[in-house]
């Protein structure tokens, strides 16, 4: 049962192996902090939607499952948007722009369809958590690499010296840099997995 949790982290990593959620991974990874925020928002919605969908899996008729999934997911996203804004205006200021993006993250619908609609509540919870963490690790790595090379900073603090921070590799925080980093991460994971075989 525990393997459902670990699978999402490396073996079936949603971004690098299942190729889901590539859009937010490329778009929201220009700084490490933004990436982390997006990751946390996805974990929250993914876990809740997996639990709900798994609990309702026997009640939902097969042909209309997709619209039902979408309603459930967007309900959770909207609830999260409102609650976050009401609870902490600072956190909302930092995370607020990512919340609406979660609804179009195909990892969530993908896991609802491929896993939660076929498994029990607890395993679906583990799957959601594992997949969410797997996504967060990758997007955070992307954000950190792109921020270090593209702005010479990490979490807004200058590293690699001030000379580099004044003229960093701007290319890395522009869209092409995102594709480059994700290609290296995918290649790296494949290389690592083949070597360990």
């Amino acid at each position, binding site marked *: 049962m525990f393997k459902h949790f670990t699978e999402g982290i490396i073996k079936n990593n949603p971004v690098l192996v299942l190729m889901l959620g590539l859009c937010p991974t490329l778009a929201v990874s220009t700084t490490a902090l933004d990436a982390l925020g997006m990751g946390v928002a996805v974990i929250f919605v993914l876990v809740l939607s997996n639990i709900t969908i798994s609990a*309702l899996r026997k009640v*939902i008729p097969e*042909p*209309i499952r997709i619209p*039902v999934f979408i309603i459930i997911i967007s309900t959770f996203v909207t609830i999260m948007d409102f*609650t976050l804004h009401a609870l902490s205006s600072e956190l909302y200021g930092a995370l607020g722009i990512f919340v609406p993006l979660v609804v179009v993250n195909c990892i969530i619908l993908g896991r609802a369809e491929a896993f939660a609609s076929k498994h029990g509540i607890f395993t679906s919870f583990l799957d959601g958590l594992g997949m969410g963490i797997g996504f967060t690790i990758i997007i955070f790595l992307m954000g950190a690499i792109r*921020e270090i090379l593209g702005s010479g900073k990490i979490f807004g603090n200058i590293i690699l010296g001030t000379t580099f921070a*004044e003229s960093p590799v701007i290319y890395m*925080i*522009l869209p092409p840099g995102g594709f480059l980093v994700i290609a290296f991460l995918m290649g790296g994971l494949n290389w690592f997995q083949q070597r360990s075989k």
Partner: protein
Amino acid sequence: MKLRMILSLTIVCLLSAFLLSWVYKTTEPKIEKDKAGKLKIHLMETAFPDAFEYEVSTKDTTFWIAYDSLKKTIGKAKFEEIIPDTLWSVLDTLGEQIGIVFKVYPKGYGGPIETLVGLSMDTIITGIRPATPAEGLKETPGLGVKILEPWFKRQFIGKKEKEVLLKKDGGTLDAITASTKSSRAVANGAREGIERYKKYLRYQAIE
């Protein structure tokens, strides 16, 4: 089967709608308060960033009455041409007007840059505040977004209309490296806003 499909989709939608309206109702007062509080903080930051006690008023009726009558006399099109998009007046604690704050939407690299500009009564800039990415700024992260850096915003303070131009364009402002377009947008937006506000003052003087 068909009936079951219709029923279950309806029930899910209804449940979702009820849940959402309940969450909305409970969070709305806090969210509204937060928005109003933030607007006030933003206006204060723009009006007199380091100054004494004062009040930013959104309900200054005399100001708005003057505004409305001007709109009627000169017509809507002309009015829009001379008045910055949104305007607040800044009052001191005695209720005397000591400045204004207006909002302009100059076109940047990724879309309009919502910018608050504060002016003293002699139309000298007291501060500017572009919206943050969370509030809808669409400039490139790590590049155009640097218009939010304090040194960039600070150089506007104390500038007159004619000085609000990038050094490249013959003015006094430093542009952000590799983000000339965003820097220029903010500078030109602020200057055009002042020009329009000055036109409004001239109209008012004629009346």
